[in-house]
């Protein structure tokens, strides 16, 4: 039983990690918490659902994930144009980013609410059998798939950030935008790149969350808070920390839900975050983004 919970927890944590990394990427460069991520996840979950339903027989889930990822990219670019571009141009204080991303998130949720109502939609069955046996352990196929895809994407992302030239530019802009512009880095392109990455991650996590649970308008919102908590515990803006924290959080939530029930889980997560902020405010990674003059 414990082993099974562990697997479920890691798979849940891997999805949280996708969300947390989506945050962390935007935060590290633009220095604001992108609340719109939750709305994007919801929108992408619906998109994936309708794509999956539109064709008979249903396309393989990997195609859906890819298509939705691309849709997420376009959505993120569009949101950047509508909500953030002018703020960047005016160099308004960070509080406006907050408000703007918050507004976008609410808009998406409400539009979905009105268009598709609050009823949850369930993805059609993706796999022939919902579990397979390893020895005498029942392992859920869905959870394994989610775990594999998330870990694959996370590895690809870490490689992108640490091995390519674009990744170097992103890291440079994350440290100091003005200086890196002086060094000849086109920070506009970097910002676009950031939103592409975040959008892709939102798309992928949207499809997987939708397939694991079901699709409803506040899906993204609920999951976003958990991804957010993970990125705080990991240290805002740090990718490695966010991944580790998210997987820990997923495992912890699985165990808590099994032993104490699902209703008290949000309270537990909140208390953990509060404790973490008291004891170690810089997060697991230890990189503390201090506000400078």
């Amino acid at each position, binding site marked *: 039983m414990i082993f099974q919970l562990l697997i479920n927890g890691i798979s849940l944590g891997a999805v949280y990690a996708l969300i947390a990394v989506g945050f962390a990427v935007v935060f590290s460069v633009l220095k604001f918490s992108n609340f719109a991520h939750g709305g994007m996840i919801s929108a992408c979950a619906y998109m994936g659902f309708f794509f999956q339903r539109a064709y008979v027989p249903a396309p393989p889930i990997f195609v859906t994930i890819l298509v939705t990822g691309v849709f997420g990219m376009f959505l993120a670019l569009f949101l950047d144009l509508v909500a953030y571009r*002018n703020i960047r141009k005016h160099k308004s204080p960070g509080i*406006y980013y907050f408000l703007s991303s918050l*507004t976008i998130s609410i*808009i998406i949720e409400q539009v979905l609410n009105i268009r598709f109502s609050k009823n949850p939609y369930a993805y059609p069955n993706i796999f022939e059998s919902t579990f397979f046996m390893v020895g005498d352990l029942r392992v859920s196929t869905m959870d394994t798939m989610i775990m594999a895809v998330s870990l694959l994407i996370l590895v690809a992302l870490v490689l992108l950030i640490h091995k390519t030239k674009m990744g170097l530019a992103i890291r440079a802009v994350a440290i100091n935008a003005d200086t890196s512009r002086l060094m000849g880095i086109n920070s506009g392109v970097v910002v676009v790149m950031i939103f592409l990455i975040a959008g892709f991650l939102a798309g992928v996590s949207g499809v997987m969350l939708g397939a694991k649970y079901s699709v409803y308008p506040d899906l993204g*919102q609920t999951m976003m808070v958990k991804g957010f908590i993970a990125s705080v515990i990991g240290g805002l803006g740090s990718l490695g920390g966010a991944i580790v924290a998210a997987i820990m959080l997923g495992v912890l939530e699985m165990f808590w839900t099994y032993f104490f029930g699902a209703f008290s889980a949000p309270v537990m*997560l*909140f208390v953990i975050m509060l404790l973490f902020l008291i004891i170690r405010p810089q997060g697991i990674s230890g990189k503390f983004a201090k506000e400078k003059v």
Partner: protein
Amino acid sequence: MSNYQLGLIINSCISVITVTGVFAVTGLAGMFSLGQAGYLAISSYVTFILARTFGLPILVTAFIGVGLSALSAYVISVPTLKLRKDYFALITMGFGQMVTAMIVLLEKYTNGSIGYSKIPKVKSLFIIVIVITVLVVFCIRNLKYSRFGRMCIALKSDEIAAKSFGIDVYKLKLRMYVLASAIAGGAGILYGLKNRVILPDSFGWNLSAEMQIFLFFGGTNSITGAVLSGFFLKLMPELFRTVKLFGQSLQEYRTIIYCVLILLVINFRPNGMMGEHELSFAWVRSVFAKKKEHMKKGTSR
């Protein structure tokens, strides 16, 4: 006026109270709180449950309710205010979610998601609400022009500079946040008295976000703007109740309209509708002063 119209005005006044509270936190001290609805929930649930179980008058339990929401604000803010502003927004948001989860969990006392409806009726609620609204707005206006308020504005524009001028930033933020939570608590009690039923859903994340939207629409630097937008934006969807769009009442689109408005404001008028302007009666005084001068000149000739 009919009961319906009175009800609308009471709703708008409650919205004004909450937005004024948020003005104290966000407009003056520059903290972004997303959990104000949680304080509304705490104080209204505590007040009405205590009043019911112990048979105390509401006036007594209201103090306990408001005090408790101020206390929980204190507990939340002590560890978090030393950190970045982002953490603060986040923690308050998590706090709001935790409060609604707690209400559902403590089903035995709060009646869970069905809603708590054992709320006594209060006579002449309209006058009480109006008086409290005026009082709160007046106090916050005075606060803005006091030494305390000027310290807050310094803190908002540059925290480090404010620190170097000897302002105890941490203590100031703590006080403002506790004050705003107490105001939110008061609004929560009025909300309960008006609607006679309180649900965990009505104190959700959307309410907190709505307050921030109202505030930014009016302009974070102007209490006049905050009050006006709090009043009229709350009233607006009710006025257009009969208008239909795509076969649904415009009220369904309420939140979307708010959001589009705020996006337009952020993109094209970042300081909000009122900017830095305040409604004041200084011009009346100046007009009279000119007249007096005129009369003096007239007599001297």
